[in-house]
């Protein structure tokens, strides 16, 4: 019997009867992983540029000299890095969202709550308004300001002597509000002909300019942040008992909370830096994961990550294929994400979502 299961015997832990027994869905992770691989391959076949499946495969595995240059560019330079970047972003955001909901024991929390997204967005907008349009300028600016936002939230919560999760959330809201306002000010003052459109499109999010450099950057960050988060799953299960019970069981609650927050913040700052804002993935997907495997974070975190990758990949395939224009990915995830969230809101009524 694993620890998370042994905890179920405690009187404060009432596992919702309607959640599926996670042990009965052991197959889910391999199945989702295979589905994700298939989805990535299918994404290479989808797009505005006409390319048959055979041509696409030939282009993917053939030597550069043997295939048409434009075909090779479409598959290898445009679609493949983009699909990988999208999957990494989706996996990371959903994983971060599930971890945050666990650590704050609140279903309304997403990775954006710390103000890191706003900070990173401000950094990106600042870089663009200063004329740094390439990844070399934009990514460092955005990442630095994202991390800076977290530091600011940390300082604020310490100054307020708030040790509870509510204090941290409030500090995050304040910092997010500040950076949101600063972003608004730069946007408002931007030259409407030379700067404004670029700022607006970047803020709405897009993977259109995915490069191998941005993929390598995000893959490294995803590994650095994702693996420790999954490794903390059993501690998150204990934390779901409540701060005092978790502390009584020997868990260093505040340290755990900050560890999760820092890991999530690092990922979110990196994700915003490479693609701009992508909302709702970190909020909605963990709910879907919880419906499938229950609240045990040991399964919820990897399942959420895989679902996040699948979901965002599907959204991006639509965003780049539906019209000749690139539909901003942030727009797609919001338009699709809000009704999905509403569905879960209705579907999950009456169910406990944590172990409380």
């Amino acid at each position: 019997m694993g620890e998370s299961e042994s905890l179920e015997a405690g009187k404060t832990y009432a596992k919702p009867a309607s959640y599926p027994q996670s042990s009965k869905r052991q197959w889910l992770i391999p199945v989702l992983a295979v589905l994700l691989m298939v989805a990535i391959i299918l994404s290479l076949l989808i797009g505005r540029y006409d390319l048959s499946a055979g041509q696409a495969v030939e282009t993917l595995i053939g030597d550069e000299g043997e295939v048409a240059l434009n075909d090779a560019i479409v598959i290898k330079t445009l679609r493949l890095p983009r699909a990988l970047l999208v999957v990494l972003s989706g996996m990371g955001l959903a994983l971060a969202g599930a971890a945050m909901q666990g650590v704050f024991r609140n279903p309304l929390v997403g990775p954006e709550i710390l103000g890191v997204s706003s900070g990173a967005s401000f950094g990106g907008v600042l870089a663009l308004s200063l004329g740094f349009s390439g990844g070399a300028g934009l990514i460092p600016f955005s990442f630095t300001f994202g991390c800076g936002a977290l530091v600011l939230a940390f300082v604020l919560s310490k100054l307020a002597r708030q040790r509870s999760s509510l204090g941290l959330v409030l500090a995050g809201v304040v910092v997010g509000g500040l950076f949101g306002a600063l972003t608004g000010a730069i946007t408002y003052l931007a030259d409407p002909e030379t700067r404004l459109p670029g700022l607006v499109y970047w803020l709405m999010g897009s993977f259109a300019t995915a490069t191998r450099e941005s993929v390598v950057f995000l893959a490294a960050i995803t590994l650095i942040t994702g693996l420790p988060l999954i490794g903390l799953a059993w501690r998150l299960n204990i934390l779901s008992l409540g701060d005092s019970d978790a502390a009584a069981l020997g868990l260093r609650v505040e340290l755990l909370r900050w560890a999760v927050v820092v890991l999530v913040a690092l990922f979110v700052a990196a994700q915003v830096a490479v693609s701009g804002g992508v909302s709702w993935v970190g909020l909605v997907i963990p709910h879907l994961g919880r419906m499938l495997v229950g609240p045990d974070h040991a399964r919820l975190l990897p399942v959420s990550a895989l679902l996040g990758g699948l979901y965002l990949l599907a959204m991006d395939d639509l965003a780049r294929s539906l019209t000749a224009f690139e539909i901003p990915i942030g727009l797609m995830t919001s338009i699709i994400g809000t009704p999905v969230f509403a569905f879960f809101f209705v579907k999950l009524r009456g169910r406990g979502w944590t172990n409380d």
Partner: protein
Amino acid sequence: MTIMNSKISGLLISWPLVLICLAALLLCFKPPPKQKTAIRANGITVTDMKGGTITLDGPAQSVFILTPILWHYLSVNLDDKPVVKIPPYMVREFNSSFLGSAFPNLKKKSLAFTDFTGPAPISVEEILQSSPDVAIVWDYMSKGLELINFQGLVKTTADGGDKTKIFNTLADLTGRKERVNWLWARFERERGKVIEDLGDCRAPVKAVVIGTTGLTLWGPPSQRWFMDNMKKVCGQNAADGFGSANGQLNIENLLILDPDVIYLNPYILDQTNLETKTILDDPRLRGLKAVRDRRVYHMPLGGSRLEGPVEAALAVLWLRLTLHPEVPSALDLRSAVRQTYREVYGYEMSEDEINIWLRLEENLSSAYYDRFAGKESSDGGI
């Protein structure tokens, strides 16, 4: 023990995440293919507005246009065959202006690359699908094409009214430098006539240009071409020094500015409700001098938004006549419009088309505009 098991299983269960990350790292190890830079011994060099250069074998045979310069391209090249695709908003303007009649073959082509409106970034794949020699795009939209080292990338940026750069680029693209020089010489000559016709400027007339239904003003540096031309004919943008051109105008501020004349943005197409009567009938604005005097005019759209060497000269004449209706003029706007399109495009405008050019029907409720009404149109109306 159970905790240790849980830790190990947690890490083992994360294999898909590790796999995807490692795959991403490995697949991106090899540089992706890009378009090769062509070396042409006898090619022509095209310099874009950002100073970038491309080389072509000769004048561009297929051009994908993503910025509002179709009309300028046509005024230089006259041959519409190279135009492959343009944005939908440009199709609407093209079809609703006389250019649609002047270039009937182009009107028949399926030009819009999408049914959606707006100047959003286009899919790079969409451009590759058309395989154009050249894609003319906004600087902020060019990242995707730069990513693949697209060899026909011509970047444009806001010009603040200085159209010489884009016309130099068009001269390179079409191989028609002499034509461009002739267009500019013609512009200088025609504008000179208007300035001479007005005579000395004693007191500049205060005007504002309202850009949107939200009462956004045109101010510096936005639309400097228009403001510069306004100064040439003794007009003054009352919004000079008002702040960001991107800002919304507070009604109180408009009352403080109290312009003599209000102009409405010429680009406004039928998707907005900003018309002269919107301003004239707004009870909040009835105290304005321009409204009391009914000197509110919707600027002509023309064929090229009154920009560039062809139509800017007509804009100067239109401004001179609406800013200073009391100063007698020897120039006739209708004749000038007809003469311009005859000389530049070899197109004979009908009376109806000139009425549309002038937005006569909408502007007739404003003061002094009936002076532009010409003969009755063929259907008996204006």
